[in-house]
């Protein structure tokens, strides 16, 4: 089980153990509710990025409509609570609606792959945004929906920032383990096969469309989960959350960290949330910076920060061992 993460390497095991302990003890050595809340944000955005990475990284399908799916789960939660449903019901309905919307997205957009997939998911995401903005009787239009209170399972009230952080952490860890198992499973291997060699996979008897469809559903599930955490975190949902900018933000998390790696989206989410939080305290121009970082990463570090760092690390250690056969080309760009 642990081997999934460490690949049997002692060094990685120690690094992961330290990281885990740091995450668990974070509320004790970080002073101030503000930073604990930033920690919670990083965790649920990381779940979102892990979900998108299933498609972008492992399936080679770039979606620009994921904020729509994220938002529809958040809206479903808010709307159900507004109708007077309990938290359990609201969450269950939101999960079902999130995954069902993803299924509709997938049926329409999997008619093509590559650029066509981007276009169709973008158009669908914008339609959901338009719906959130205009369908005022359900969504409240520009005013959004406010959610009062967070759930308190077994008397463990999530209104406390620390408690919310721990629940986010548990959800995050479960998501990481699920993705890790998924990637190592035969199904994960088949999915990466459809990314690299769809025609060969087809010839080998794999149902390429179906494999991609299931990957979409898994991605949709993680997206819905993060959307629900988001709406409980902010206690508010408005059309802005579904805008193209939000889809681009989460895509930036994936491609800046490194698509097709487990750690990449987590690092990317951490970076983007921190930059966004810090920068928006000083200047108003977050969107300009988002665009500039996007262009810079795509042109300068196309493989992402994590694979880039691994490549550099590999070059450094190999130089020391004086083996000239550098196999740095293993981190080829995935999409």
């Amino acid at each position, binding site marked *: 089980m642990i081997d999934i993460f460490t690949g049997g390497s002692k060094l990685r095991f120690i690094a992961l153990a330290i990281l885990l302990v740091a995450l668990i003890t974070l509320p004790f050595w970080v002073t101030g509710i503000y930073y604990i809340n930033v920690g919670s944000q990083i965790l649920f955005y990381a779940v979102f990025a892990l979900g998108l990475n299933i498609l972008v990284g492992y399936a080679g399908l770039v979606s620009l409509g994921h904020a729509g799916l994220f938002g529809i789960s958040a809206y479903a939660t808010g709307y159900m609570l507004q109708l007077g449903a309990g938290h359990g019901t609201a969450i269950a309905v939101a999960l079902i609606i999130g995954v069902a919307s993803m299924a509709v997205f997938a049926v*329409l957009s999997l008619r093509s792959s590559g650029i066509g997939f981007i*276009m169709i998911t*973008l158009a669908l995401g914008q339609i959901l945004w338009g*719906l959130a903005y205009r369908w005022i*009787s359900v969504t409240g239009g520009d005013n959004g929906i406010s959610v009062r209170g967070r759930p308190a399972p077994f008397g463990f009230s999530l209104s406390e920032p620390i408690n919310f952080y721990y629940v986010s952490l548990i959800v995050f860890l479960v998501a990481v383990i699920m993705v890790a198992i998924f990637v190592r499973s035969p199904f994960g291997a088949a999915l990466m096969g459809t990314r690299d060699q769809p025609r060969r996979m087809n010839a080998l008897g794999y149902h390429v469309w179906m494999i991609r469809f299931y990957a979409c559903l898994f991605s949709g599930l993680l997206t819905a989960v993060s959307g629900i955490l988001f709406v409980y975190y902010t206690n508010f949902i408005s059309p802005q959350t579904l805008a193209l900018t939000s889809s681009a933000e989460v895509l930036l998390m994936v491609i800046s960290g490194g698509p097709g790696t487990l750690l990449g989206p987590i690092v990317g989410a951490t970076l983007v949330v921190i930059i966004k939080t810090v920068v928006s305290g000083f200047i108003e121009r977050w*969107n300009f910076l988002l665009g500039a970082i996007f262009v810079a990463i795509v042109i300068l570090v196309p493989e992402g920060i994590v694979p880039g760092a691994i490549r550099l690390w590999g070059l450094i250690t190999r130089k020391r061992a004086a083996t000239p056969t550098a196999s740095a080309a293993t981190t080829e760009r995935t999409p």
Partner: protein
Amino acid sequence: MNFWIVLTVNSVTFGGLLFLLASGFSLIFGLMRIPNLTHGSLFMLGAYVGGSIVIGLFGVKLNFWLAAVLASLTVAALGAVIERFLLRQLPGDQLAQVLVTLGISFMAADFCLMIWGGDPMSVATPEGLGGFARVGAAVFPMYRLAIIAIAVVVAVALWMLLDRTRLGAMIRAGVDDPDMARVVGIRVSQLFTIVFALGAGLAAFAGIIGGPILSVYPGLDQDMLPLALLVVIIGGAGSLLGSFVGSILVGFIYNFGQALLPELAYFVLFLPMLLVLLLRPQGLFGRHVP
């Protein structure tokens, strides 16, 4: 009765504007195989620049039509710069090119917000077109009829360009088979810049022409881009006829949707897209699935 006539005229007008926007988008898509996600921003930028020149910008104050031409040329030059200096860095990597256009669109939107602020800017209807034309009992705003006329003129001009000139033949060859076009000596990468600039200029022209009826506001780019995407998904990439039919269709559905089901106007657009994707994934007049 009058209600329906007005709605129809509005739909055709909006369809005409969409055609100006989407024809360039479709040509860029057909030739370079990328959806240019800056297209909404170029539309908005054209509207802002043109509107500012009409009011007076750096001491330049022109009438509406000259301002429209100047704004279109400025944005076309910007398009050429984007293609030459950014997209050219990533030859053949379509995904990266799309992401770059996405990044630029955010920068452009924020730039407009920084320069022109958050309040909508209204563009005055050009002189002489503020009145109404009466046909029997029906009354049409002159300016809307003028937009329809302009869209038809541009459509014919584009068709002549693509069908009757050497440049058009080269573009068509590039759309059909870029490798073969290169083999016979067409400099396809030069065509990329020309088509990108042409598309950018057309988008900006649509923006300023649409200014008097849509007004200009932050977020206009994100309102228009999905419509251009829909036109291309419905009409088929790289097809002028497809853009024309798709634009009119989307114009009608959008306007009728807004009048009859205002809350679901955006959602109704989903239906033609659904039908086309299910029955004819390459679009009504497209040759291949993108």
